[in-house]
């Protein structure tokens, strides 16, 4: 327990988890449509406001877990209710809490049926997201990890598009099936260490076979969630059919859970297996980057295009994580944030078009730049950010990842470059069609009166702020995570030095 800084007084993290839950319970009893919208917006805004105070109290000079709360839960099995955040998870918590009000705003008119149930699901979603990123007990983590499937399933299956049945069931089964071995791995780790407290499971010298098996169980669960090529097939279906808010949560937060899992569990709990298997995962990451790029280039459906671009972007994230040096891991975490901001924003943009033209086809949206100047301004910035244009957030992330990769292995970095080029290609193709189109554009003049309203601008503007904030001044974000990342990598290198025979297998 010495890896914790226990906070006396107000239990901020518990509040962040249970406040939305309380809000959701209220919605069970009062379910007027208008009330549900304003109530949920208020709840998510208050949660976001409280989460900001995490930063002010956060000590950036230590890698320990802060704001910790420890309570007994199931003493028979040594299971505790332990919460805490370090430099990695605090960013994820903030991403979740800040994206939620925007999702509510985006669904303001889009969701017309069963509004209070929708808002209920959204709040439950928020509970499980925050809970997942703050749990430091593996059973607690698992509870949130699995529970999260229920609201997400409902979001897709109830308010989704025409193929919602297929998409939602595929999402649910794919993710659940991927994580059954994770549960076995958790229990196996408990047998070895006698605790479910995550930091106490880290940096042990488990036998190599055990590490490899546990690593594979972890990897399967997290790779499906990320999703890494070739486990990505649920993602386009789920994204395309989900309502806008569902897509945003899926892209911005859910995919991060996989990458977060790799950082939090794969690296520290099974370090030697990580060194041994990293080359293969790097290969998959590169494959994902290239594959996502090419597939996105071939899409006619804008939502699918953004969805496949996610596969590519998350490939960069896993690349950064498994290159295993400080720069690349920091880049990967920044890229996780970037992807949350940028891809979330792009999904919001696609949703706004869909509300107007009732189509996600690129063809139906060509040439609207002439009639919707506000809209295409936002879209342009987000698209530029998506392929890592200098000055935007993704540039910082991709640059750090590629710089770190270059340091480790030049060929690997070279192999990832085409991904960045492809990203520019598919994003510029979409942008060109939407803004200008060609000579045979459909008549879009009816959109003249339907440029973005204040609510929609208010939804997109905060995301744009982050695009430039991270893009121009990433230092505050890097400061938050720096000590946690340095600690992680130093421990890894320490383990590597102790086992040189494994190290020699690395990066050949």
């Amino acid at each position, binding site marked *: 327990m010495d890896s914790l800084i226990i906070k006396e007084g107000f239990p901020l993290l518990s509040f962040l988890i249970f406040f939305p839950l309380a809000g959701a319970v209220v919605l069970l009893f009062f379910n007027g449509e208008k009330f549900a919208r304003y109530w949920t917006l208020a709840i998510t805004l208050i949660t976001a406001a409280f989460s900001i105070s995490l930063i002010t109290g956060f000590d950036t000079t230590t890698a320990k877990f802060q704001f910790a709360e420890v309570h007994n*839960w*199931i*003493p*028979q*099995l040594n299971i505790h209710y332990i919460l805490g955040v370090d430099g990695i998870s605090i960013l994820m918590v903030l991403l979740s809490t800040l994206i939620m009000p925007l999702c509510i705003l985006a669904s303001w008119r889009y969701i017309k049926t*069963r509004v209070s*149930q929708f808002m209920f699901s959204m709040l439950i979603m928020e509970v499980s997201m925050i809970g997942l990123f703050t749990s430091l007990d593996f*059973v607690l983590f*698992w*509870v*949130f990890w*699995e*529970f999260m*499937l*229920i609201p997400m*399933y*409902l979001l897709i*299956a*109830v308010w989704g598009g025409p193929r*919602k*049945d297929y998409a*939602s*069931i595929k999402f*649910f*089964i794919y993710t*659940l*099936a991927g994580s*059954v*071995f994770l*549960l*076995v791995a958790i*229990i*196996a780790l*408990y*047998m070895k260490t006698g605790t479910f407290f995550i930091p106490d499971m880290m940096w042990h010298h488990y036998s190599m076979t055990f590490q490899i098996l546990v690593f594979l169980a972890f990897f399967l669960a997290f790779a499906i969630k990320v999703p890494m090529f070739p486990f990505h097939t649920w993602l386009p279906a789920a994204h395309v059919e989900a309502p806008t808010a569902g897509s945003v949560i899926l892209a911005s937060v859910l995919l991060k859970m996989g990458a977060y899992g790799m950082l939090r569990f794969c690296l520290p709990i099974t370090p030697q297996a990580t060194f041994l298997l990293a080359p293969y995962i790097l290969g998959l990451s590169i494959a994902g980057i290239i594959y996502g790029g090419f597939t996105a280039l071939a899409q006619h459906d804008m939502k699918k295009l953004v969805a496949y671009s996610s596969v590519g972007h998350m490939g960069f994230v896993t690349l950064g994580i498994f290159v295993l040096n400080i720069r690349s891991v920091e880049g990967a975490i920044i890229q996780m944030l970037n992807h949350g901001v940028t891809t979330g924003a792009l999904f919001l943009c696609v949703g706004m078009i869909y509300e107007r033209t009732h189509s996600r086809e690129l063809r139906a949206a060509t040439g609207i730049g002439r009639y919707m100047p506000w809209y295409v301004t936002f879209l342009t910035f987000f698209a530029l950010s998506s392929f890592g244009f200098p000055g935007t957030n993704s540039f910082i992330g991709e640059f750090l990842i590629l710089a770190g990769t270059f340091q480790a292995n030049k060929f690997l970095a070279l192999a990832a470059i085409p991904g960045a080029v492809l990203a520019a290609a598919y994003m510029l193709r979409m942008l060109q069609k939407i803004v200008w189109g060609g000579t045979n554009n459909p008549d879009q003049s009816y959109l003249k009166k339907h440029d973005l309203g204040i609510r929609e601008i208010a939804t997109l503007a905060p995301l744009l702020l982050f695009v430039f904030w991270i893009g121009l001044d990433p230092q505050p974000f890097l400061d938050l995570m720096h000590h946690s990342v340095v600690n992680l990598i130093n421990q890894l290198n320490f383990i590597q030095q102790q086992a040189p025979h494994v190290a020699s297998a690395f990066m050949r």
Partner: protein
Amino acid sequence: MAMAILPELSLLTAVLAFFVLSLSKDLNSEQIKNTAVGFGFVTLFCTVISLHQQASMFFGSYQVDLFTQLFKLMIGLGLFFVLIAGQNLKDIELSVRPEYYMFFFLSCFGLMTLVSSVELITLFVSLELSSFALFLLVPMRSDQQGLRIQMEAGIKYILFGVIASGFMLYGMSYIFGLTGTTYLKDILPGLKNVASQPAALFAVIMVLVGFFYKLALFPMHFWVPDIYQGASNETTGFVATVPKLAAVALLIRFVLLVPGDAHILITLLIVLALCSMFYGNLIALVQTDVKRMLGFSGIAHAGFIMLGLLTMEASGYATAMYYIVGYVFMNIACFMVLSNVSQQGENLAIEDLNGLHKRQPLLALVLAVSLFALAGIPPFIGFMGEFMLLTGALRQGYLLLVILAAVNAGIAIYYYLSVIRAAYTTDPEGRPDVQIDGLTKAAGVILMLLIALMGILPSRIVALADSAVRAIM
């Protein structure tokens, strides 16, 4: 003295009361219903106040301790909720309802005496009392389609039941032959003396087979689908739940009797558990009748419970108790939904649940919670039970078993999800709204809370179960 067997006395009173009611000419359905629910409540109350009684009576053949009383409390709870869940008895003729309840309570009486029996003859008589009363409930369904499926179900139930009893008696005769006694407390040392003889193990396994039948463990599961489908919704709700509590109680008692090296028995249990899980889950995938699907899911869950028994230690048995009580609550909640959604008591296909979220939001929620719980999604009791069973089994080193059991959790989600999908994502398409009364609403909310809270806060219950198991070890 009477205090110790208060629940049994209360059930006997109920049996007699319904016997008197059955003599009356003009029957009032409200009156019968209220009497039944009232007796259910009284019995529950009695089980609560006699929880900490200790006694040994009838020449030591009847034991009252924490283990038995805890099981009686669970049976009392199950009984009470089953009565509320199936209070309308839509598919049972009014003229036979008093008899229906009479046998219903008689069966519960049998189950309660069963968990207290510590002598083979008493035990057998209790078991048959509870079984034969159950056999009679099945054909009491009114013959709607003229197909007489309830008769087929009744006959199948009796035949399979009698065969299982036959196995059991055969095993008991071996036990008596080897040890010369019918008292469990003398059998244990007696069997130890002949532990090297295969007959000792054979005898115990034969007796276990009788309870495997009650629990519907592969390969004693053959009765399940047809009886579930042929019996009325309310009867199935009872058959599928409460008797399994007593079955687990007796399985624990008899597993404790296994002499010497338990390797063979453990291997057997592992094989049966895996067969049960895979068989139940894979066949449930293709079911369209909700009751049949729940039947196959029950077979799979029976396999899961074996994970607790085959650890051969107190914490494993305690987890099995925790899991079975959770299973009973989850299933009663499902059957409550089925009994209420079914208009005239007909069987429901999965698509008959379409649009339930509009037709009756509370029941839709109850259904979703209980099915997610059955599927083992946290934080509900189904997950916590599954997690503890897996932990216990892995502690004994059965890695492959644990992995395969976890895989089964992945398979099972599909069919549970298809029912939830029907209830939550489709429109009613002209299916009528479902009206439920206040008592059902309250029971639904309480069941949901139990399923959620027992999953979130399991430590107290498991500790209680643990001390109960230690009381008989």
